[in-house]
């Protein structure tokens, strides 16, 4: 096995391309990708959704899907040419030599099979365990990945496990047969920060034991901790690749720099942060720029449509979004060039850019404006609300317990907590969607939560919701005009309503030409802007934002956060901002309330809470946030840069 030689790469990929034939033409999801990975090394592939990173990973397992055409100059694993493998040979490789971990173990483990059976499957199909020995092996594996009470968990179903335990079980199933390479596709995306830190620790442990890791993520901060090498993908191409330390400290490609700038930080509160960054009125959204949803071809599998005509071959794919783009960028594709001095062991730092490492013009950033004036009048007063639910086993569970806070006019209050902490239930009580068991909510000092719906209706317009998943809150057959126009109160002729809707779109930085689109043909960022426009239509005093950017790519996320910050200044709305992401809250909010198990554990000004948390739980949350150390320089040991606590 060539993987035993430390110098020979375990995995070698050159010129990998994956194309899908669809009704709308050929979609070239992955183009000319070079990767190489040695045993015990971690390569991180980073990019936004649709960048082709998952397709690349699946191609390495021969699972690019029906209709995929995979071509490569080199595609070798452990010295074997993968291009010539037949179906049976692929199957013998999968699970046994290459393990695969997907995100969200709730759907990646068969929900109808016991956890033990799922973990055992790889051993079973490869005939690696005798039947009477199988259970013991599975229990040993579960113990190895840090699942407590493996003998109990073994017989449970995935839904009976917490998210973290599920992900551990999924990892156990992927490493069961002792693969030399573990491909992990967004392994921590659906997890809370503390659990995320633990799962990353587990992967780090595997690498220490000699398993090579191919880590795929949309989040640079997550991979910064583990990666030896980083490859940044955009629109199906690797635009920059190099040793992690060099790439993160001195990014050569403007997209990498944008990604780094968009990572919500916890450390530099006074620096002009990314919220005031690339958001520009009428600015095109990320997916727009690359001709994705809304383009003439329509969305296909969430991938950018790359025409095979002359247009496909001209220019840098990032040019439409790039602050540095000039005529040459738009007309000819930049070839890969070496950049900087590379890694300590002479690894190459490659970039596809005509202007590698150049400072982006400061004009692309909005200058920070004067802080918003917060009036000392509470628009929403939450007084000791409690909500209990009955569990299936008959016991009563406290979703929200004795929570009190005030939201002042014009203020942005962050409500932070992990899943199940009661933050969304609190939001729904504030919106008077559900009635608290005890306690009250006052709106403008008047009763709100205890009223009959009939008495509330006239004041509903004062408090509006922006959801995590706007698409499901739109009627799919409505055009944007109807979605937004419907929310404008009062009777008026259709033309005036359309004008109002157009004005609202302008307010959230969308082109009024989108009025006639249906939501399905908008990009994720555009949808969220439409949702915000709709929420603004009745002229509310309060916007309740429930995880408004969780489903978005980091660069788009930064744009939406910037928009919310601007609307706060211009429209003077107060924000009740619910998020599991501390970095996001840090950017948007003045004050923060931390929830755990239905109770408020800490409330205070953002700066104070993040600098000196009083509650132990807040400190734990903060410590678990992955971050890129700003002081880190090329040549430093990459995985020492990020300090994390709380991993097993």
């Amino acid at each position, binding site marked *: 096995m060539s993987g035993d030689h430390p110098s020979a790469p375990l995995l070698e990929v050159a010129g990998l391309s994956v194309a899908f034939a669809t009704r709308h033409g050929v979609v070239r999801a992955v183009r000319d990708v070079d990767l190489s990975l040695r045993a015990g090394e971690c390569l991180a592939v980073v990019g936004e959704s649709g960048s082709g990173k998952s397709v690349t990973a699946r191609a390495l397992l021969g*699972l690019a899907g029906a209709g995929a055409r995979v071509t490569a100059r080199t595609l070798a694993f452990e010295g074997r040419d993968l291009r010539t493998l037949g179906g049976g040979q692929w199957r013998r490789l*999968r699970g046994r030599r290459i393990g695969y971990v*997907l995100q969200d173990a709730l759907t*990646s483990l*068969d929900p109808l099979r016991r956890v033990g059976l799922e973990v055992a499957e790889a051993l079973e*199909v490869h005939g690696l365990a005798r039947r009477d020995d199988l259970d013991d092996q599975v229990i040993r594996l579960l113990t190895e990945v840090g699942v407590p009470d493996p003998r109990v968990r073994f017989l449970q179903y995935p839904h009976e496990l917490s998210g973290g335990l599920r992900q551990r079980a999924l990892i156990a199933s992927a490493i069961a*047969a002792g693969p030399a390479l573990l491909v992990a596709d967004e392994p921590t995306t659906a997890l809370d920060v503390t659990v995320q830190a633990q799962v990353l620790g587990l992967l780090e442990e595997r690498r220490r034991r000699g398993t090579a890791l191919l880590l795929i993520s949309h989040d640079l901060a997550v991979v910064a901790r583990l990666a030896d090498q980083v490859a940044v993908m955009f629109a199906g191409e690797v635009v920059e690749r190099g040793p992690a330390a060099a790439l993160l400290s001195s990014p050569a490609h403007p997209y990498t720099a944008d990604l780094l700038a968009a990572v919500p930080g916890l450390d530099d509160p006074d620096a002009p942060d990314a919220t005031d960054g690339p958001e520009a009125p009428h600015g095109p959204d990320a997916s727009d720029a690359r001709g994705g949803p809304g383009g003439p071809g329509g969305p296909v599998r969430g991938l950018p449509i790359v025409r095979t005509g002359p247009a496909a071959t001209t220019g840098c794919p990032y040019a439409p979004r790039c602050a540095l783009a000039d005529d040459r960028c738009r007309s000819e594709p930049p070839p890969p060039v070496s950049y900087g001095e590379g890694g300590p062991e002479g690894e190459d730092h490659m970039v596809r850019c005509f202007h590698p490492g150049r400072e982006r013009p400061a004009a692309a950033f909005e200058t920070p404006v004067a802080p918003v004036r917060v009036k000392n009048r509470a628009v929403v007063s939450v007084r000791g609300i409690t909500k209990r639910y009955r569990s299936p086993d008959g016991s009563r569970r406290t979703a929200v317990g004795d929570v009190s806070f005030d939201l002042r006019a014009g203020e942005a209050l962050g409500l932070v907590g992990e899943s199940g902490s009661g933050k969304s239930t609190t939001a729904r009580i504030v919106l008077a969607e559900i009635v608290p068991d005890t306690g009250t909510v006052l709106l403008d000092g008047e009763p709100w939560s205890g009223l009959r719906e009939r008495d509330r209706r006239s004041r509903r317009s004062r408090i509006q919701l922006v959801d995590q998943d706007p698409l499901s809150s739109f009627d799919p057959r409505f055009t944007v005009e109807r979605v937004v126009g419907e929310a404008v109160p009062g009777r008026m002729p259709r033309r005036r309503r359309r004008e109002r809707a157009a004005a609202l779109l302008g307010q959230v930085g969308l082109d009024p030409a989108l009025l006639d689109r249906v939501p399905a043909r908008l990009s994720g960022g555009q949808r969220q802007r439409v949702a915000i426009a709709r929420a603004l239509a009745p002229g509310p005093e309060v916007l309740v934002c429930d995880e408004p950017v969780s489903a978005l790519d980091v660069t788009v996320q930064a744009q939406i956060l910037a928009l919310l910050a601007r609307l706060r200044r211009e429209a003077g709305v107060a924000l009740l901002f619910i998020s599991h992401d501390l970095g996001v809250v840090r950017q948007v909010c003045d004050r923060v309330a931390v929830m755990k198990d239905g109770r408020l554990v800490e409330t205070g000004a953002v700066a104070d809470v993040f600098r000196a948390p009083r509650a132990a739980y807040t400190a734990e949350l903060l410590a678990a946030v992955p971050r890129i150390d700003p002081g880190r320089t090329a040549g430093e040991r990459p995985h020492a840069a990020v300090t994390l606590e709380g991993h097993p």
Partner: protein
Amino acid sequence: MPPLARRLTRRLALTLFVLWGAATFAFAGMRLVPGDPARVIAGGVQANATPQVLDAIRDEYGLREPIVVQYARFLGRLLRADLGGSYQLGRPVSRVIGEQIGATLALAAGAAALGFGLAVALATLTAGRPRLRALSRAVEFCSISTPNFWIGILLLAAFSFHLGWFPVIGDDGPAALVLPCAALALPIAGVLAQVTREGLERALDQPFALTARARGATEHRIRVRHALRHAALPVLTLSGWVLGELLAGTVVVETVFARQGLGHVVVAAVRGRDFPVVTGVVVLSALVFSLINIAVDLLYGLADPRIGAAA
């Protein structure tokens, strides 16, 4: 009370309510049809019964009493599981049903097994395979849109008259059961195959199927060990419908194949307005329906552990 016991109690109470409703509708239906019940009992209009005979019948069957009293009596007998005597056959209804139910059960059970089996096999083989799927869909649509009796006649023509593999009529031995079962099962299999295949395809699209593939599992294993169970839920939901199809179908199929069975009895009873027999069959059908639905409800929990936790 544990949740399961609570659920079962609720379902059984609901069953009693359904039985009462079915019996009441049967009672009302037979009484609302114009005509004199006494004449029916005496042997129909053609029998030319004398007024004396009719009077005697009215006394004996309590037909002079107000309808409310008749209804109360009827329910009282039903509570004691007494279905009364057949007007036409002169024998207790329970015995009439008892003699015929065996043949019908064999037919229905055979058809159900064949229908489900055929559907699962077809769906597993053709899910996610466009060409096979197109072929299978064409066959399924044919079998769905062809009435039982016509399928029966075609089967008879092909396998009995032409090939001589199976007996033409009668109900002796398992060989005689094959064609009637097939005639009854084919339309059911057509619908179930489509539902099963859709469930399979949805399951095969899920991340866990990709995970299983990444473990090196064969396509067959992924379909049978993983996806099939996911497809079971919508199919289970259709069980009530299947039962209805079977009940309605037996009447036709028993006629086409000249078999003994409840279908035959019902047709004769309705035509002759044999009120106790019709009521007996209706109440029995309602009971079977309810029990099957309770069984399906329990099977849901077995098929999907998440439902057991949520209910």
